[in-house]
Structure formats: structure tokens, C-alpha cells
């Protein structure tokens, strides 16, 4: 019995203990001192799903929803389960070929693996959804997932309601702590943008457990740590959707804008920027295509909100303001008369005029006499009570600023332009220290350097209607569930203009009423309502070429108890009385009487709607664009006829200028066509190919 090695039993036990201690040490290291493993485990296993709440609805003043949510469907596929799918039928229903199907599948598997659900076709049309829904049993692995999208039930208000867009890296950087993620949508323009924080609601988070292949295994702890999504708050706007519809109808085939304000509240009743577009174009799966088309290929720039983002010379509508300041400062009085023989000669170069005769303030406003206001303006600037013209102009500008001119009003829409009321320093620079009132005489009739946006003009009308006060024009009156962020506070502040005596307002009202009764706005009379209005005709030029005048019209009604102040503007429409004024009058009638009565008035609506006042330079560009497209297609068809067999596979993306908008049958000028035909020949190879394909598949 050899027992001489018994001590080695101890050694073996020591080895056991040593290894045990080493393992324990590593366990301590892993489990107690390394937080990274816990983190890595969470990254592995948790899938954080953002639950999107319904966005808030925007209602008009009569509680009709003008921007709502609707359910749209995505066709979602789990590629690994879709092997038994009836591919041919699916492709037929989706109008794609099997090659496209295979390519998409490949891409999805590459991007998102074959075991996770991916969107195969987003935002199906109603028709497509119905067709697919009937046949879903044939497509194992495919499913229809609903999601909420925005819809505009009245198809109006594109410029003011705005649209949603996918967040980009820049947006994410600017809004770091607001919980946006790549792939989210945010309000990009219009009210969607201004009230994004209110409309978006609060996102919910659900935590799921996922396995090693990314498949969800159920919720974590039965949802104990999940947060619920809170729907966005609804907004009540001051828009009158019927008036908006009528306004957009009247502005068809025109370039311009309308702003109508309720002078009592500052609420905007109607805000049209023409040409407009159907806002639903920017919600479906064709969104990108439509957007590109309007953004880059329509020379009329339908995405530009002309009520705020464009500044014009206000023209004669500015004269009322000059009159008010003149009277208030005592530079003129109601007895002062100016006679005009067709032009103002006081400053050497004659300034043309529409009316002849001798005028006091009232008829001067009614007849829009240039000479009268030129004299008034000069009298203000040269008045003895000021030390010099600089001071006089500063006082004049103080009035202007108190009327909301020269800087942003603060309308609750993005991208409002300042406008421009030039101060004395501007003229110092331009004309030297001793500038004369004659240097800036154009300003007296709203030309020259003065720039306003149309909302400012409408707001001036509201101020005149209110006799000296206004609320900042705004679209949203109230927020359901309270305005926690104080977004509407600034619209509750009553702004007062510089002191203007009561009788001045009366004089101006009188003059503006005269406009409608016997003056320049005669054709825009509204039967049975005392409207106060002022026409405007603005000279303008584009790239040095003098264009037809812009037509302006500002008004408020009824005179006794003003409920609507309106400004209408038609670009290059010529004399204000024939287009802008009648549009305003119809809108006033519609708003005050709730409908347009009388057959001749109804006929007027149609007549105005059909009146084509697209500025000629834009028309030219449109024709050019259309004929370019035609020529491309012609060349493509010719080439396709020559070698159809040569075309292999079309790129998936459609060219932005594809046949989305119908080709207007504009007679193309021979010269342009020849030009563009030559250009077509120089198109890069790639582009030509796609054109061919379009033709052949069409």
C-alpha cells in the first residue's frame, strides 16, 4: 500500500482551490465590474419600438376638419416566409414585373435580413388595397399593415396647412432632444411646421425582446416599462373652408394671392396663394414625384406661399396710409385740394395719373389720384415742425411700423418676409445728405423702395376698419386641451397704432366707400353691403423687362361693423379693378351673406375662375417645358421604334419629369421646339434610356 505520496493530495486540493479562485475572479470582473456586458446585452435583446400617436386635426372656424388623419396601408413582407407566394399574381396586382419583384426582394433581404418584416410597397392606393386584400391568402409572408397618414378632405389650403417630410440629418441635429429618429416624419411647412410640437403628440415607447436573428419574442416584462402614445392636440383655426374653396377657385389660372382677416380677432379667414395644388398630392406614395415636379419643374412656383413669402410694392393701396399719416400729422387737412391734369409735374419728371380733376382727400382715395398723394407725401416730409426731412421720414416710418409694416407681423406660418420700409439712412446712402422729398416721391403711391407682403396689406385694411388697432393676424385661434407652450399668447395682444384722430378714419372710410360706389372699384360693388376698398396697380419688371402691372385690391366690410378685411393680388393682371377687385367683392359677399346670390354674380364667379391671367413670361416657360418633354418623348419613341430589342432593364426610379402632369396642348413655337430637339440629342445616354423605357411600357 504505497501511501508515501499522501502530501500530494494537498497539492491537488490547492490546484482545485486555485482554479476555483481564478474563475471566481473572472466572474467578479465580468458580473460586478464590467457594465459594458449589461449594455451589450440590452443592445442585443431589446427592440425599442416607437409608437406614433395620431397627429392633431386642424378644424376650420365652423369645426369642419380641414387636415385630418386617415388610414393607409403598406404591403409588408417577411421574405423568408414568402417563398410560397403566387408571385405572378402579386406582380400583376402591383403592376410590376417579376424582375422588379426579385430585385426588391433582394434589396429588402440585404437591408433588413429575410426574417424581419420590411415594407414592400408603401402607401397603397385605395384601389390597390382592395385588390390585394381580396387576394391576401395567395401571398403567404405578405401582410397589409395600416398606418396613419395625413389627408386634406377639402383639397384646399395647401400653402397654409403645409405638408410632412421625412427628417434629414440636419433636422435631427437641430432637434436633438426631441426624440426624432431617422425615418420619422415632421411638419415641414405651413401650420404642420409651426405647430409641430402641439400636433405631434407624445410618442410612446414599447420594449420588445428580440432573438439572435432579430425576430420579436414578445414584450419585455409584459409592458411594465412601456409608455403610451398620447395623441396630438387638435387645432381650431379661423379659416372658413368654404371661403377658402371659393378663393382658390377664383384664383385658378392666375398667379397671386388672397388674404382675408377678421379685423375683430386678427384671425385669418382665407389665405390663398395661387397657383395652388391639391395638398393630397404630397401624402401618398407619389409624394416625392409630385414634390419634385412642383419644386423644380413648374415655373409658377406653386410651393411658394405668395401671401407671406413674397414682398411686393403695395401700390395705390398704400395711398390710404399716406393720407392717414398726412392728416394725423396735420400736413394736410380735409380742405386741401390738389388738381391734376393727368400727371404730377411737381418733381420735374411727370408722374402719370389715372384720373383728372380737382380732389380733396375723399375723392382722391376713391379715384386713386397720384398727384394728391404726391403732394401729401411731400408736405409731410417738408413740414416745418420737423427739424429736417430725416426726422420727418422717421416719424412717417414710425406710423408705418405701428401699422405692422416693414417687419414680420408674426403670422403663425414659417418663412414670412419682412417687407421693407426704407429709413432716412437708406436715402443718405443713395442720394447724399441733402436728399429731397422729390427723390422718393414714388413711395407716396406705394412704389419705389417700399415693399410689403400681402398679409401686411390685409392687416392695414383691418387696422383702418378698426380705426387704429389690430391683433396680429393668425390662423390658429385655439388649441384643444389648452395652449401649454404659449404659442398663441402673442395673438392675444392688442396692438395700437400711433394716435390718429377719429375724424381721419371717418374721412378715409368715406373715401374708400367712394371707391366702390363711384371710384376705381365700381365694378366690384357688393350689392347691399357698404364695402370700403382701395385698388392698386403696381408697375413691375422682370429681368429688366417691363411687365404688365400687378393688380392689388384692399378692402373691408361692412363699413359700420367691419367683419372682414381683405387684400387680393394678381400678378401681372393689369388694372386692379378688373381682376383683384371683383374677386375680393365675391369673397366679401360669400363671407358676409354666406352665399353668392343672383345669377349674374354666380356667372361672375365662373367668368373670373376661367379668366387666364398667367403672366406671359411664366406661360412661355411652361410652354418651353411642355414642348421639351414632348420632344423628348418623340425622340424616344423614334429611337424605340428603331431598336426596341436593345432595351434591357429600366432603372427603378422614375425620372422626376415623367408623365405625372397631363401635357397641356399648348401650341409649341417652332423655334423653341427646334432648340429643344437639338438639346435632346445631347442628353446623356442614361436619361435617354429611361425615356425609351417609359414609352415602351406605357
Amino acid at each position: 500500500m504505497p501511501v508515501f505520496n499522501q502530501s500530494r493530495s494537498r497539492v491537488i486540493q490547492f490546484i482545485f482551490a486555485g482554479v476555483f479562485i481564478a474563475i471566481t475572479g473572472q466572474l467578479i470582473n465580468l458580473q460586478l465590474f464590467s457594465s459594458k456586458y449589461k449594455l451589450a446585452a440590452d443592445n442585443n435583446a431589446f427592440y425599442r419600438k416607437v409608437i406614433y400617436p395620431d397627429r392633431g386635426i386642424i378644424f376650420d372656424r365652423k369645426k369642419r376638419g380641414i387636415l385630418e388623419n386617415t388610414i393607409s396601408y403598406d404591403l409588408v413582407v417577411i421574405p423568408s416566409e414568402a417563398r410560397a407566394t403566387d408571385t405572378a399574381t402579386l406582380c400583376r396586382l402591383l403592376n410590376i414585373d417579376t424582375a422588379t419583384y426579385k430585385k426588391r426582394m433582394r434589396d429588402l433581404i440585404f437591408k433588413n435580413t429575410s426574417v424581419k418584416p420590411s415594407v414592400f410597397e408603401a402607401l397603397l392606393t385605395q384601389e390597390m388595397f382592395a385588390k390585394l386584400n381580396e387576394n391576401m391568402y395567395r401571398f403567404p409572408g405578405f401582410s397589409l399593415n395600416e398606418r396613419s397618414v395625413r389627408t386634406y378632405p377639402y383639397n384646399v389650403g395647401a400653402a397654409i396647412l403645409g405638408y410632412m417630410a421625412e427628417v434629414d440629418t440636419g433636422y435631427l441635429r437641430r432637434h436633438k432632444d426631441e426624440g426624432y429618429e431617422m425615418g420619422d416624419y415632421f411638419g415641414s411647412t405651413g401650420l404642420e411646421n409651426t405647430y409641430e410640437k402641439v400636433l405631434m403628440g407624445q410618442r410612446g415607447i414599447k420594449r420588445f425582446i428580440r432573438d439572435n436573428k432579430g425576430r420579436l419574442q414578445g414584450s419585455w416584462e409584459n409592458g411594465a416599462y412601456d409608455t403610451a402614445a398620447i395623441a396630438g392636440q387638435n387645432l381650431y383655426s379661423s379659416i372658413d373652408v368654404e371661403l377658402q374653396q371659393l378663393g382658390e377657385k377664383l384664383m385658378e389660372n392666375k398667379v397671386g394671392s388672397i388674404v382675408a382677416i377678421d379685423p375683430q380677432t386678427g384671425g385669418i379667414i382665407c389665405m390663398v396663394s395661387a397657383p395652388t395644388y391639391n395638398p393630397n398630392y404630397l401624402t401618398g406614395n407619389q409624394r416625392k414625384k409630385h414634390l419634385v415636379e412642383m419644386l423644380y419643374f413648374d415655373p409658377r412656383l406653386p410651393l411658394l406661399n405668395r401671401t407671406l413669402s413674397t414682398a411686393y410694392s403695395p401700390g395705390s393701396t398704400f395711398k390710404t396710409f399716406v393720407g392717414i399719416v398726412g392728416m394725423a400729422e396735420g400736413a394736410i387737412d380735409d380742405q386741401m385740394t390738389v388738381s391734376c391734369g393727368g400727371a404730377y409735374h411737381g418733381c420735374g419728371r411727370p408722374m402719370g395719373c389715372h384720373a383728372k380733376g380737382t380732389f380733396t382727400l375723399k375723392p382722391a382715395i376713391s379715384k386713386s389720384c397720384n398727384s394728391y398723394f404726391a403732394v401729401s407725401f411731400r408736405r409731410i416730409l417738408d413740414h416745418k415742425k420737423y427739424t429736417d426731412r430725416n426726422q420727418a421720414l422717421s416719424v412717417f416710418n414710425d406710423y408705418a411700423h405701428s401699422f405692422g409694416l416693414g417687419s414680420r407681423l408674426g403670422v403663425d406660418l414659417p418663412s414670412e418676409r419682412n417687407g421693407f420700409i426704407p429709413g432716412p439712412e437708406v436715402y443718405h446712402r443713395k442720394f447724399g445728405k441733402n436728399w429731397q422729398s422729390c427723390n422718393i416721391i414714388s413711395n407716396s403711391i406705394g412704389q419705389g423702395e417700399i415693399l410689403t407682403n400681402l398679409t401686411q396689406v390685409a392687416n392695414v385694411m383691418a387696422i383702418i376698419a378698426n380705426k387704429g388697432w389690430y391683433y396680429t393676424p393668425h390662423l390658429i385661434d385655439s388649441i384643444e386641451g389648452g395652449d401649454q407652450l404659449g404659442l398663441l399668447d402673442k395673438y392675444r395682444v392688442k396692438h395700437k397704432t400711433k394716435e390718429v384722430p377719429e375724424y381721419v378714419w371717418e374721412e378715409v372710410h368715406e373715401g374708400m366707400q367712394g371707391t366702390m360706389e363711384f371710384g376705381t372699384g365700381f365694378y366690384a360693388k357688393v350689392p347691399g353691403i357698404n364695402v370700403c376698398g382701395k385698388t392698386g396697380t403696381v408697375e413691375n419688371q422682370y429681368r429688366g423687362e417691363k411687365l404688365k402691372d400687378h393688380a392689388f385690391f384692399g378692402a373691408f366690410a361692412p363699413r359700420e361693423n367691419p367683419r372682414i378685411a381683405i387684400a387680393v393680388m394678381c400678378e401681372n393682371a393689369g388694372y386692379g379693378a378688373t381682376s383683384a377687385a371683383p374677386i375680393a367683392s365675391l369673397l366679401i359677399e360669400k363671407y358676409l351673406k354666406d352665399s353668392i346670390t343672383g345669377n349674374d354674380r354666380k356667372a361672375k364667379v365662373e367668368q373670373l375662375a376661367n379668366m387666364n391671367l398667367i403672366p406671359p413670361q411664366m406661360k412661355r416657360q411652361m410652354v418651353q417645358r411642355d414642348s421639351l418633354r414632348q420632344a423628348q418623348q418623340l425622340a424616344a419613341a423614334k429611337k424605340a421604334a428603331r431598336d426596341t430589342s436593345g432595351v434591357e432593364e429600366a432603372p427603378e426610379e422614375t425620372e422626376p419629369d415623367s408623365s405625372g402632369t397631363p401635357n397641356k396642348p399648348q401650341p409649341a413655337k417652332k423655334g423653341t421646339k427646334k432648340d429643344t430637339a437639338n438639346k435632346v440629342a445631347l442628353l446623356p445616354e442614361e436619361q435617354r434610356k429611361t425615356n425609351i423605357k417609359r414609352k415602351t411600357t406605357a
Partner: protein
Amino acid sequence: MNRRNHQIATQGVDYLVIWLYAILVGIGILCIFMVEYRPGTDWFTSFLNGKTNYSKQLIFAGVCAIAATFILLTDSKLFTAFANLFYLFGILLMLATFVLGKNINGSKSWIPLVGGFNLQPAELCKIFAALALAKFLSRQEVDFSKIRSQLIAGAITLSPAVLSILQHELGLALVYTSFLIAMYREGLPAQILIIGSSFGVLVIATLILEPNVLAIILTVIAAVVIFLLRKQIKKKRKLLTIIITIWLICVGVQRFVVPYIFNNVLECYQSTRIYSMVGKEYDCSENRKAQDKTNTNKPVRKPDDYNVRQSKIAIGSGGFFGRGFLKGTQTRGKYVPEQHTDFIFTSLGEAFGFVGCFIFLLIYLFLLYRIVRIAERQRSTFSRVYAYSVVSILFFHIAVNVSMTIGLFPIVGIPLPLISYGGSSLLTFTALIFILLRLDADRQMVLR
């Protein structure tokens, strides 16, 4: 007769070990249940269906209980008498796998049995090798201090290992090295263990350090040793030659032998696993076997340390108290590959945290110490050698398996004794332990 048998069977049996055994098997089934469990499924019916791994493991446990009872009912003389025959049978069985073998997970070491179960002879062979070693060392004419007996003992234990390597079961082959511990107890010179561990340290140092840095360090160590021993060296010139020879061997190993082993002997994935253990990346393009594969145009999939990473994540995420029973996210998400077999420790680590792991390891340690104590109380060499073989095998399995899940050892396919899913493994350890218990119960008898 029956009564007498009963008395014999229960007399002197170490119940503590049986309890520890039962606890560990119970923990094992619970762990497998944790791995398989999916919320929402009716686990009870699936349990009764017998299709799930935990119900299968329970069946295995039942079979093992029967086997254990049989072993306890046998006469301990049986094992001494048939030790060599068993060994021969085991070797034949292993050879048979080359003919009848079934390919499971890339290793052709399984023999298909009836009912869809498979047997891994290499597992069973551990028992037979332990018995054969015990038999050999207990022979009176064997003097283990002689080189010849040492070589024979080595051959007994290493032949199954060689067969395992041929079956691509490196892990199982490594287990047979654990017999060194048993042999050490019986008088194997300690130098062999020291040289072996020194070689291990040198290999790891080669992996961690830059070749030149290591060479300088080795030279400095040699210089220091020569300086310290300068008086002895003056007396004995031979000592200097020994030191210089050792130094040369060390540098040669780190310079040429280690790279040669990694590039030419080991497979690409094995080298990668060893490198990943020390947190380094192995360039497979230097591996000759991988090069051969590329030459034959087979796509070489670059193996990575996914297993270890996920295993460490699962254990690390347990924290101090763990996520709780059935609440482990990594276990539920099947992030750890082979979690019900080789990586079963991860489910425990995630669910019960450091506390659970520590208690679990204490149970193991307690079992090991208990077996060592049993071994030391044996009167017969056969029983003692066998007991030490059992404890060595257990220790090697536990140490290597747990170490590999926590990143202390490269990944080799070694199951965690009594815990990992698998009938062969459970049956082997049951047999190992209960044969020991039978021998221990008869420790008053003198066995040869």
C-alpha cells in the same frame, strides 16, 4: 437473497455525494428548461410530449437513476475483474465509430442507437480508461517510479485521446490529459507537471507579447539567474550549460515552435479561438490548413469570437443577483450558441448572477473535495487511483467548461458535468460517480 443484496447495496454508501449528484442534475434540468422556455407556450404539455430537451434530459436522468441503482447493486469485484476487458470494449467501440459513425456538428464520433438517440463512445471510454489505469497501477508488480510503467500508464490514457482527435473531438481528447493529476498523486514526477505548465505559460506569453520583447525578457531572466547562481556555477560548470540550454529552448519555442503549431498543426478556427482568448485577432491567411482549403476553392468562412462574446455578454449581464429565473434576455433570445450543451453555464450566470454562479461553483468544489476525501480513505490502490481519476475528470470538465464561457480558456467542446444537455455525458458521469460510490462502500475489502 434480496434482503442481503439490499443490505450490501446501502451499506457504507456515501449519501452526501448522492445528494450533491441529485442537486446538480436537478439544476441541470432547470437550466435546460430556462434555455428552452418561451413565454406563451404551454410548457407543461410540451414537457409531457417529451419533444423538448428538458423532458429528454429528465428521461436521461431516469435512465441514469436505473443505471446507478444497478451499479450500486453490483459487486465491486466486477470492476477490478473486468477493467481491462471494459477498456478493450471501449477502444473497439471507438474504432467502430469510424465505420458506423454519424456526423453531428462536424465530428464523426456518434453511434446511432434506436429511438433517435446517439451514443458517443469517447465519453464512455473515460470510465474504461479510468478503470484500466486503476487496474494497471494497482498491480503489485508495477513500480510507478519507473519510466516504463509511466509510459504504459500514459499509453493507456492517451490511446482513447488519439482516437478522439481522429474523430475531430479535440475537447474530449484533452480530457484524457486530466489523468495526469491522478498519476501525479500516484508518484508521477512533479517535474513533468512543472515543465508542462511552464510550456503553457510560455505559449500564452508568446501570444500576448511581441516576439522580440519576450526574447529580451527571457534573456534578462537567464542573466539574472546566472548572476544569482554565480557561486554555484563556479563550483559546477554544468549548471551554466543547463541554464543556457533552457534559455535556448525557451527562445526557440517562442520563436519557432509556437508559430509552427498555430500555423501548421492547428486548424484556423482553433488558432482563432486561442488568440481571441487573449483578445487578439489571428490572421487565417497564415494558416496552412486554411490555405489548403482556399486552394481547393472551398470558401473559407472567417471564424470569429462570436461564441465567447455572446457568452461573456450573457454572464456579464447577470450582475450581482442576476435577472431572475426565466427572465434572461440573452437566454430567451438564443444569443448564445449551443447554450443547452457546452454553454449551459451562461443561462445560470444570466439568471442568477454572481451569487448564483458562486453558490453553484461551491457545490462543485464541495463535490470535488468530498471525492478527494473519499479517495484518501481507500485502502486499495485500485479504488484510490480510480477515485482520483474521477475527480480529475470532473475537475477538468468543470474548469475548462466554465473558463471557456467566461473567456479564460479557448473554446473546446467539453460539457459541464451533470448539467449540460446530453444523455451520453450524463450517463458517463453517473457511471463514474456511482462506480466510485460502489468501490467506496466496499473500502473495507481489499481489492486488487
